[in-house]
């Protein structure tokens, strides 16, 4: 029997156990094959449960387990690294009919994936606030800051930070559907999401792509630069300040 046949029956409970598998008396494998089916379903469901604690709270454990079952059949892992499993969840949620009324779910899933990526991202040493303050304004504007590999930016038209925080930190639930941009930073080993000042996301996105500070300021509307740089410094998110092209 080929592994293709084994695999086809594994992820499809409607199929009988493959011929060629037997119990010790040579009878069809039946429930014995179900052990493998169950192992795959339970272990992948558990990987998804760990990845999406907030989605779980939002839809409830029972619904999440049923949804995970649909998800793992449609999107089995493509890597032996379970720390990557679930990357298809945001798109899956966008198209999963039973949750179409919860428009914010896909962005919450993106936030949770970004937290996990940040957790496993490379370490880096940050620059001090003093080092940044020592730069003249012109030098600062021309510089290209390197940001920590663990930094992630999630932009949403939903109050994703407030929803995340209400479920993980017990803060008040959002009362209105305002858009929120979230910066995930990992000062040591624990990633934490921060709500960005309005308008700061294009600036951070530009810096992440290697722009100079002056260029990044042109990327979007006016915003609170002092608060934004303060957040980057407080979360140890700037790992180098490379001198830019002096004009």
């Amino acid at each position, binding site marked *: 029997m080929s592994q293709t046949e084994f695999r086809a029956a594994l992820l499809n409970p409607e199929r009988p156990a493959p011929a060629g*598998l*037997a119990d010790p008396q040579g009878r069809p494998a039946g429930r*014995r094959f179900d052990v*493998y089916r169950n192992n795959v379903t339970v272990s992948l469901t558990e990987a998804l449960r760990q990845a999406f604690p907030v989605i779980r709270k939002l839809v409830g454990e029972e619904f999440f387990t049923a949804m995970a079952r649909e998800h793992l059949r449609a999107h089995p892992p493509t890597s*032996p690294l379970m720390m990557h499993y679930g990357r298809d969840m945001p798109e899956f949620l966008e198209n999963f009919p039973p949750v179409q009324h919860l428009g914010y779910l896909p962005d919450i899933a993106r936030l949770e994936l970004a937290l996990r990526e940040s957790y496993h*991202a490379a370490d880096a040493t940050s620059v001090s606030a003093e080092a940044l303050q020592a730069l003249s304004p012109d030098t600062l504007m021309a510089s290209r800051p390197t940001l920590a590999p663990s930094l992630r930016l999630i932009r949403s038209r939903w109050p994703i930070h407030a929803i995340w925080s209400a479920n993980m930190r017990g803060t008040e639930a959002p009362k209105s559907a305002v858009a929120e941009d979230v910066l995930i930073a990992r000062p040591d080993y624990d990633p934490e999401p921060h709500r960005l000042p309005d308008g700061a996301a294009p600036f951070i996105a530009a810096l992440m792509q290697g722009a100079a500070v002056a260029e990044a300021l042109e990327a979007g509307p006016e915003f609170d630069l002092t608060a934004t740089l303060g957040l980057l410094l407080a979360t140890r998110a700037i790992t180098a300040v490379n001198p830019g092209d002096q004009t």
Partner: protein
Amino acid sequence: MLDQSAKRQLPPRPGIGYKPQHFSNILQDAEPVKWLEIHAENYMGDGGRPLAQLRYLAERFPISVHGVGLSIGGEGPLNRDHLARLKHLCDWVDPASFSEHLAWSTHGAEFLNDLLPLPYTDATLERVADHIAEVQDHVGRRMLLENPSVYVNFTETNMGEIEFLTEVARRTGCGLLLDVNNVFVSCTNRQTDPYDYIDRFPHQLVGEIHLGGHDEDTDDMGAPLLIDAHGSEVVDPVWQLYAHTIAISGPKPTLIEWDNDVPDWPVLADEASRAARILDKVIA
């Protein structure tokens, strides 16, 4: 700090499967645990807490790197990216032991996250031996191959599991990891005698022993069906089979595996103490 020479091999004493929630317990007082095993795939990120903890532990304990994702029994070629990640991990951790499973888990582009069984035939023997040779070449280390827990028989199987494992080891020079709970589970499920299995096993090839808990179920005919679940204590019949094993083989590095519903540290330390007492009797 661990003396460099002590890192080179696992001591014939108890070890445990490392879980991050036990980090501070282990640093305070690991007794009677003398070495730690990690699942390779959990330490293949780029940084952060998992790698920082492992760096710290590897300076203090002999480490066993135990892969669960290589799919050595797979019909397709080994995943080259995954081999490269394993080599990178083994290069920096410099583990005392490196092991993987006689199983498959990858099919095409899919990873199924379970240790799936294979029939024992000349064709699968050749494939497994080729894959192990490739792994050992690539990683640059000898590996140990673990006997599986199985729930079904393949009608096409035409050699015994011990014969299969022994021949793979002969062809590739790999060693074996003897999971005594897997022997108990598989023999019960196959309705064969686990003591006979242990008596016939090539113990001189064994570099490490695993012990773990299993669940009990029944098949369609009401026959016992044991499931390797790693979520509970080692049961008395498995402890007895273990004592029988090391009475034959002499003391071996012995791992307590507990991967699901992981208990507080004292429960694991008690399991390790029980293994230590059995090892002590063999040495005495």
